[in-house]
């Protein structure tokens, strides 16, 4: 591999970085303003974390997002593994289905949910992780699909099966670690989507972290921006950190 400075790559990353971080940094600067005292300070953040409902709502949205991730992986990994291995004719059909949620505006979906689900379903907050799963599906499906395409799936599975593993061990102990890059990406986007989901949540009359932030914004706009910043930057930082800390997998043939 060439070791000299890769100008095009650095240029690309710089431009992207500029584009991505300017709004974030600006909002961060807004959030550390303290107009009542003049200058800057952490007041808004301190206020945010000491708000009694902050922890409540973070935990609530946090576990809803975690539940969504679990549901997504539980359903998609086995299904996609099977689709890849069996070359089933139903695969194009399911590929197409997975894109449908992109085609439906969230608002319309929310109203469809409002007018279709029975009282029992609408009374439990457990309907949300399943609905978030649907919203995340186009991205999660693709991400895992790509991951599975880029490994020698047949070989690995045959090896594991002939070593005596049953299907669930094969999937959890062999396949998932091999595609952990794309699993991480899937976890990241599913978690981010669920944590920030607002429209569907409001229309179904639930209150979660994003709806609480909007509520708070009325009384204390700077506080709301601080909260928003935390909810963006923290998952970002944590997920990126986890990805960086994950050991390299040794590449076996192919790219």
């Amino acid at each position: 591999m060439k070791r000299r400075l890769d100008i095009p790559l650095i240029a690309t990353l710089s431009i992207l970085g500029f584009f991505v971080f300017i709004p974030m940094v600006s909002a961060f600067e807004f959030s550390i303003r303290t107009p009542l005292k003049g200058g800057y300070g952490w007041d808004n953040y301190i206020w945010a974390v000491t708000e009694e409902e902050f922890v409540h709502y973070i935990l609530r949205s946090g576990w809803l997002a975690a539940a969504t991730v679990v549901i997504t992986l539980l359903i998609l990994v086995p299904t996609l593994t099977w689709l890849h291995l069996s070359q089933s004719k139903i695969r194009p059909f399911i590929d197409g289905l997975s894109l449908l949620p992109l085609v439906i505006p969230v608002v319309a979906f929310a109203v469809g949910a409002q007018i279709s689900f029975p009282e029992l379903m609408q009374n439990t907050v457990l309907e949300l992780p399943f609905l978030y799963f649907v919203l995340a599906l186009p991205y999660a499906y693709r991400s895992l699909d790509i991951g599975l395409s880029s490994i020698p799936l047949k070989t690995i599975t045959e090896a594991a099966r002939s070593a005596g593993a049953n299907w669930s061990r094969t999937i959890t102990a062999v396949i998932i670690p091999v595609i952990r890059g794309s699993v991480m990406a899937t976890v990241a986007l599913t978690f981010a989507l669920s944590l920030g989901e607002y429209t569907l949540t409001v229309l179904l009359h639930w209150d979660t972290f994003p709806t609480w932030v909007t509520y708070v914004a009325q009384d204390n706009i700077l506080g709301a921006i601080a909260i928003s910043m935390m909810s963006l930057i923290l998952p970002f930082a944590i997920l990126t950190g986890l990805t960086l800390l994950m050991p390299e997998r040794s590449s076996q043939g192919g790219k």
Partner: protein
Amino acid sequence: MGFKSIGEGASTRGRAFLTFSPRSFLPAIPFLLIFGYFFLFPISRLVYVAFLSNEHTLTLSNFVTAFKEPYKTGFINSIKIGLLSAAITAIPGALAAYFIETRGPSKLRRTIAVMSGVLANTGGIPLAFMFTAAIGLQGRLTKILKAAGWDIYAGHFSLGTFTGLLIVYLYFQLPLMVIVFSPAIVSLRKEWIEAARNLGANQFNYWIRIGIPLLFPSFIASFLLLFASGFSAYATANALTVGNLPLTPLQIGGLLDGNVSAQQLNLGKALGVVMILISAMAVVPYLVLQRRAAKWQQR
């Protein structure tokens, strides 16, 4: 568990659906059940109700209204913003994906994948906050530009206009392009460029005759997906405008959550159905193009 043994594989040629046996689909059942109940079921009800009048009779009147003003302008604006946000980010996104995937070390690639996943999902109020803080009236960047001599608010610009919203949309469209197009880059095997070079082709020829033609279908497919995304974006537009920039998702939102009233009760649902049809017109070609590209992208 009902998996076929690995040695066999059903032939993927042709659409011989009639020869399927239901048992071979067993593993797909959990997915189909959950997806069917939580998605297909509400959407079908939505479609059904779109054909109902205020008196609960079947009618096309909701659709007739959906094509009149102001909804017609709404569709035009939404299609415009979808096309433009896709067009502007398609090539930069493709280039970024190319450089990152071909030259970036593995750790970088994975980090970018994760970051793109989070960024592609930013929207709504957090995104509105970020851009208001950056290029809003009091924004940091606004002030810097003004000091440098360029007052972006001298004309009609504001974040709530079409242009302003378009700029904000680029923020999540670009990462989306990177996510969606990267697999195509990854599938361009190094062996091919080597083979081409051995046959006497230089970089330029490689690209003109091999690289670009191979990437083109995936590129168009990604563009179409970006269009669907920009076309149906709702939360961000809702956070930045007040119902005076006609955009179909906003119009639907207002009608459906009770913040806007109209004479026909099911108008919002009809607008939703039309949106589905327009998005489908983008997504179906996407699927066709992807399937063809997948043939050479398979390992």
